[in-house]
C-alpha cells in the first residue's frame, strides 16, 4: 500500500470573484522510504501540493489517502493528532519558536503529544546530536545561523519518529554549500531511518541528489507522477 495516494485531486482558490486553479487533476503515489523532490517554477502548485499531503489543507475534489487514512474524513482534532504523530515539518523560514531554545523547540512536538519533560528532553537531545548541533542546544534561534536553525528544524521534524517528513523549500534561505549539506543530511536520514522525505524546490542544483523527481507546471504533474 502506498504511503500517499492522490487521485484526480484538484485545489481551487477564490480570490474575490476569480477562481485560481492551483492544482488540476493530480494523480500521485508515493511509497514508504522514498526521497522525493517536487519541483517546478514559482506558482506551479508545489506548496499547495505539500499542504494537501501534510493535512493542513483540504483538496477541492479528488481522493487523498495518507498512510491509509482518508484525510478529508478526519475532524480537526484528529487531523492535528495525525500531523503530530505521522508527519514532520521542515519550513523554508525554519519557523522555530523564538522564545524557546534549540532543545525546547525540538521537544515541542513531543510535549504537544503529551510526553513527559524528561522523555521529551532525552529524545530531543538524541535528535540534536544526530543533526550535529549538540553543543548549541541552549541557544535560542536568534543566536544561530540559518544552517543551524534548519538543522534544529530537521531535528524537530524527526523527534516524533514520523513516517513522513515534508519540507517546503528547505534550502531557499541558505547558501549553496549549506543547502547541499542540508539535502545530504535529509538523504542520510532517509536511508538510515527509512523515513519518507518529500520536499519542494526550484533549485535545479539540488536535483541530482534526489531519487525521484515530480515536476509540476501550472498545477499539473508533467513528469514523475507515476513511480519509476
Amino acid at each position, binding site marked *: 500500500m502506498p504511503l500517499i495516494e492522490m487521485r484526480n485531486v484538484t485545489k481551487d482558490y477564490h480570490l474575490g470573484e476569480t477562481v485560481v486553479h492551483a492544482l488540476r487533476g493530480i494523480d500521485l503515489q508515493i511509497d514508504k522510504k522514498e526521497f522525493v523532490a517536487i519541483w517546478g517554477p514559482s506558482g506551479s502548485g508545489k506548496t499547495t501540493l505539500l499542504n494537501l499531503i501534510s493535512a493542513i489543507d483540504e483538496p477541492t475534489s479528488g481522493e487523498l489517502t495518507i498512510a491509509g487514512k482518508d484525510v478529508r474524513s478526519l475532524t480537526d482534532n484528529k487531523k492535528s*493528532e495525525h500531523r*503530530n504523530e505521522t508527519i514532520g*515539518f521542515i*519550513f523554508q523560514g525554519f519557523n522555530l519558536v523564538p522564545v524557546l531554545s534549540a532543545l525546547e523547540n525540538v521537544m515541542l512536538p513531543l*510535549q504537544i503529544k503529551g510526553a513527559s519533560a524528561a522523555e521529551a528532553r532525552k529524545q530531543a537531545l538524541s535528535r540534536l546530536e544526530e543533526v550535529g548541533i549538540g553543543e548549541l542546544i541552549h541557544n535560542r534561534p536568534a543566536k544561530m545561523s540559518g544552517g543551524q536553525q534548519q538543522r534544529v528544524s530537521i531535528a524537530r521534524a524527526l523527534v516524533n519518529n514520523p513516517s513522513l517528513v515534508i519540507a517546503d523549500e528547505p534550502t531557499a534561505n541558505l547558501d549553496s554549500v549549506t543547502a547541499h549539506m542540508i539535502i545530504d543530511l535529509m538523504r542520510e536520514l532517509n536511508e538510515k531511518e527509512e523515513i519518507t522525505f518529500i520536499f519542494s524546490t526550484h533549485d535545479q542544483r539540488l536535483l541530482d541528489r534526489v531519487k525521484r523527481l515530480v515536476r509540476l507546471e501550472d498545477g499539473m504533474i508533467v513528469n514523475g507522477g507515476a513511480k519509476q
Partner: protein
Amino acid sequence: MMKWIKLAVRNILRNKRRSFVTLLAIGVGFAAISVFQGYVNHVYYGLRVMAIHGEGLGHLRINKAGWQEKGKLEPEKYMFSKDDTQKIIKLATEENTVRLATPQIQVTGIVTNGIASTIFIAQGVVPKDDKTIKGRWADFLPVKGQTLSDEKRYGVEIAQDLSNYLSLTPDKEGVVMAPTLSGQMNALDIKINGVYNTGSEFSNDKFMRFNFYFAQSLLDTQSAERIVILLKDWQDTERMRTILLAKLKAAGINCEIRTWEDLSLFFSKQKNFLNIMFTFLFSIVLVIVVMTTVNTMGMSILERTREIGTLRALGLKRRGVSLLFSLEGALLGFFGSIIGIILHTCVWAMIRIYPPRYSPPGLAMPIDLVVDMVPWMLFILLLCFVLLSLFAAIIPARRAAKQNIVDALGHV
C-alpha cells in the same frame, strides 16, 4: 501544564515595553481598587463603632411590638413595664454572647438656660451600663467635665454645639421641659455634668444624655422604652436577633428587635454611597483592564500568526492555542496584580507614616485617613483580576485558534 505556563511567561517578556505598559495599567487599576477598598473597610469599621458605641445603639435594640409604628402616639402602651424590663434583661443575659442588657428611654423636649431655649433629644441611660457600651469610644471622644452618675441623678451630659448655643458648660444649671406620658408638661432642674461630641454634626446641636431614672421622672413613668443589648462580638448580631426573638416570644413577651445596622441611618447611607462609588470605580478599572488585555493579546496574536500556524502544523489542537493565549492573559492579570499589591503596600505605608486628615461629610471633627491592609481582600481581588484578564484574553485566543493554518503559515 508547567511547560505552557513557561512558554506563556516567555511570550509575555517577548515585547517588554508593551507588556510593561499593560502590567502597569493593570497594577495601577488594582491598586486604585484595593486602596479604595482598604479605605472603605476602615470607614465601615469606624461607622460601625460609631453606631454601636458612639451613638450608643448597642448591637440589638428590643422594643415592644408596634413601637416603631404607634409608639409615638401611645408611648405608655408600647413601653415595657418594670417587670417585663427585668424579665427581658434576665433572659438576654443568660446568653453567653450577650455582654450587657440595659434599659433606655428617649425624651424630647425643651432645654433652657433661663434666657434662651431650644429643643433637645435625650437618651435616658443607666450610667455604668452606658460606660460599658461606650467602651474605648469614650477615649476617642471624651466627655469634658464629669460623666453621668447614679448619685447625682439630675446631672446631665450635653452635646457640644447645644452647649455652645445655650452657654451651658459644666457645673452650670438649666431646666428641661417635656410632656409626661399622660400629656402633662413637666419641668426639672438640671446641672451640666459634662459636654460631649456626638461625632455627627446632625446630632451635635440637639443631643443630651440623662440618667435613666431622671428621664423616667421627667416622663413620670416606671417603664422603659427599649432594652439595648451589647454583644461580645458584632458578628453575632443577626444570629442573636433570631435567638432572642424566639426566646422572648416563648416567654410571652411580644417584641421587635432591630440591629444597629437597621437603626443607624447614617451608617446605611454612608455604606450605600461608598458601595456606589466602589462599583463606579470598579467598572472603570474593569473596562481599562479588559481593553488593555484585549489590545495586548490582539497585537501579540497578530505578530505571532506564523508561529500559531507552525504550532498547529506540529499538531497543537485549537483548544491548545486557545489555552496558550488565555494563559498569557491570565498571567498578565496575575503579574499586574502583583504590581498592584506592591503599589497598594507603598500607599498603605505612606498613609500610615504621614496620615492625611480630613473631615468626612456628616462628621463634626477631622479624622485621620486610614487605609486598611486586608490580605484576604487583596487575594480575592487578585483572583478577580486573573479571571478578568483570562476572560478578556479568551476572545482573541479563540480567534487565534480558528485561524486557517495555511494562511497563518503564509502570514508575513
